[in-house]
């Protein structure tokens, strides 16, 4: 069959292209352009607000990979991810299983309660949590002291050993509701017939969940893990409001590191947007790599 020339194909599909055009322009303006510019800026020695910007090739990247604080922040970001995502996934699943039970009359109420932190502004949560975990009459310490669990107040956010676990705990609490909703959506795709058939075949309790329900919702689990993992690598507002990366870098994740070098120099010298962009690009590629790996895993799971 004679194939139409490309121009003719485009002309025939002109309405499709026209409708795609607005989205393409917006994507170009707000996604492609900033990504491209950050790649370009990462090759410059530039403070970000003077005309003077010197092309220095990959020197910023070289400096970043040789900076121990960069790697500390890099690793800390993954510690944060590996410390929060499994907890959220497992807890969210357990809660969803319970709240998916139609017999439980108060399920909508509990769903709402667990979901409420999700819709609360994260900066507000961050600030309020600094008071909750304050060693000076903070409710967390008051509880621990009144129950004799500790004899002296714990400086949750000021102690390098406790700061990251505390922020991770707040993060899990804040976003648990959305994980629960993902799982509920997944569980609700399982037809009632499957439950009925399983019961007839004698599969109940954990056997029902392990052998019947879990394989059905597994593809959803991959998507949920992917979304949660990327989410756990984007925790700037919570950490900035709770600790700003301190004390002495103990809670400095990559986003805080990038922010610190790009904008905020408490020590009173010029910021380094070029360097921050290099760190950001490096970080972006790392996140992309993880996303691709998870995507491949998802495809493989679907084939199974």
């Amino acid at each position, binding site marked *: 069959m004679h194939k139409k020339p490309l121009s003719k194909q485009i002309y025939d599909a002109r309405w499709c292209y026209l409708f795609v055009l607005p989205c393409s322009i917006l994507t170009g303006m707000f996604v492609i352009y900033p990504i491209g510019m950050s790649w370009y800026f990462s090759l410059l020695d530039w*403070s*970000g*607000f*003077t*005309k003077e910007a010197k092309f220095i090739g990959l020197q910023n990247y070289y400096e970043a990979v040789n*900076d121990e*604080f960069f790697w500390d922040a890099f690793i800390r970001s993954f510690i944060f991810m590996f410390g929060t995502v499994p907890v959220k996934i497992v807890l969210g699943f357990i809660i969803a299983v319970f709240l998916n039970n139609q017999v439980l009359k108060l399920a909508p109420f509990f769903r709402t309660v667990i979901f409420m932190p999700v819709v609360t502004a994260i900066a507000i949560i961050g600030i309020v949590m*600094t*008071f909750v*975990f*304050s*060693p*000076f*009459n*903070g*409710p967390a310490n*008051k509880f621990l*002291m009144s129950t004799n669990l500790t*004899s*002296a*107040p714990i*400086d*949750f*956010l*000021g*102690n*390098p050993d406790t700061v990251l676990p505390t922020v991770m705990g707040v993060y899990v609490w804040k976003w648990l509701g959305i994980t629960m909703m993902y799982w509920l959506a997944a569980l609700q795709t399982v037809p009632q017939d499957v439950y009925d058939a399983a019961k007839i075949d004698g599969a109940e309790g954990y056997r029902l969940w392990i052998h019947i329900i879990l394989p059905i919702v597994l593809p959803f689990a991959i998507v949920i893990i992917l979304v949660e993992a990327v989410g756990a690598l984007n925790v700037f507002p919570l950490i900035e409001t709770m*600790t*700003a990366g*301190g*004390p*002495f*870098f*103990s809670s400095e994740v990559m986003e805080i590191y990038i922010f610190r070098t790009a*904008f*905020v*120099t*408490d*020590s*009173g*010298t*010029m*910021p*380094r947007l070029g360097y921050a962009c290099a760190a950001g690009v490096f970080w972006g590629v790392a996140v992309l790599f993880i996303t691709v790996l998870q995507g491949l895993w998802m495809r493989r799971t679907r084939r199974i």
Partner: protein
Amino acid sequence: MKKKKDLKISRRTVMKGALAAGAMMSAGSIPSKLFAGEFNIPDPLKPLPTTGGNMRWIDSGDMKGVFWKKLFPEYAASRGITIEYDGLPWKEINKIVPIAIRNGTVHDVFQLPIGMDPGVAVSEGWVQPWDDYIENIDEWLGAFPSGVYLPGVNQFNGKTYGTCLTANKRTGTCLLYSEKYMSEAGYDPQAGRMTYSEIRDAAKKITKNGNGQYYGWIIGGNQVNRWEDVVHTFGQVGGAHSGRGGFTNRHINFQNGKFQIASDQYMEAVELLLQLKSDGSAFPGVMSMNAPQARALMPQGAAGMIFQGPWCIGVWGRDAPNWKYGIASEPVPDGKEAQPLYIAEGGSNTFWLSANSTMGPFAGDLIRFMGTEQGQIYWAQTVGAADPAVNPDAVAKAGLTGPSAQALSMFAENILVGPNPIVRNKDVGIVAAKSRVPDPSLALVIQGLYTGQLKGVEAQLKDCNQRYEDALDKAVEEARADGANVTRDDWVFPNWDVYSNYGAEKYQEL
């Protein structure tokens, strides 16, 4: 078993205090009680445009905000314009102003981010000179003390680009204390400068007397600059003569041009902070509070001592008028005489006029008024010692009393003008623009030592000192590569007598 008593200060009260302090810092919305409302704003020296308009103004707030919030409405009404004021912490200024400059939306009048070389602002065309907007500017400048307006600092190409209404003769680490707790501990800081041992002992006794309800000492430990400020100033008092200001001045001994971070005096100051912690005299949770939060806890009886600036006076005067506190000079190491502190020439709180501003006539008229003796008196009466008015006659006439007057007297006694490399060689400004504080900075090193994440005071300070030396060398090298005529010798002032002011004649001797 006897149950430990709960602290009497409620969390709600702490939040309230911190919020009030924050509001003071950011917006200055708390009305002043120091003067009774109305300003006598003189007519402009020449007719102003009748088209009106909105003038936008941004600065670092604090007590300045308190003053502007009172003055701006009256001034705006008298000139038929509106004024939009944003008083924000430095951290925000450092973020907002550069972005606004880049976008062409910066305020009409603004402060440059910390560390920004004014020469860069001029050469980049972000600012315009005040000369066209301040009537009889030469006469007006002549009323300021010498050393406030200087080429390379706020004057460029024979024009005045930056205006200063306040002096930089102050410290941010005075000993502020609860009179009651200090007296119960058996100390009177007014009797003479306290030594490190006395501070430590007083802190121990206050903590003991507090029995878990209050502690000897408090600091806003998650605001890292507080650590550096304390060690820097205490080091100076101990005899580590060094400059103040940005990276190219701070911690540098101008007798040899070298950083003083690894000096014995700095080490002693760090050790004092660590001892206050190891003695159990530090308020629990200092690492998770900033300076305004720590300051807000003082009048609530949470701690006996804090090393802070005179800006506390205004805040406490409004939040806790009945609380009895005292202010005294920084402590001195045992067995030593207190040494002078140094400031660089020039004023503080420099205001710049945006190159895009069409409100220059009004901004110039307002700045001119504030530079007059009457304007300076108004300023001094409200702001007091927090940001001292630059005109000493006006300060004298403002009739300040109490801690404000005492703080100003202390500053006059303890602070001298030291050398300033940029006054000697304007190309030092290029170095300032190239310089980067190395990671971890001194502030963070001290914080790390305090939390125990870093070990060994001497080794850490020596490493830090070397990092600072290397960073300055690198900045000088980069500036030279860009054509700047500058060497590390520009930081060496062999004729610096540390017991006298370093004035224009000294620069000429070099």
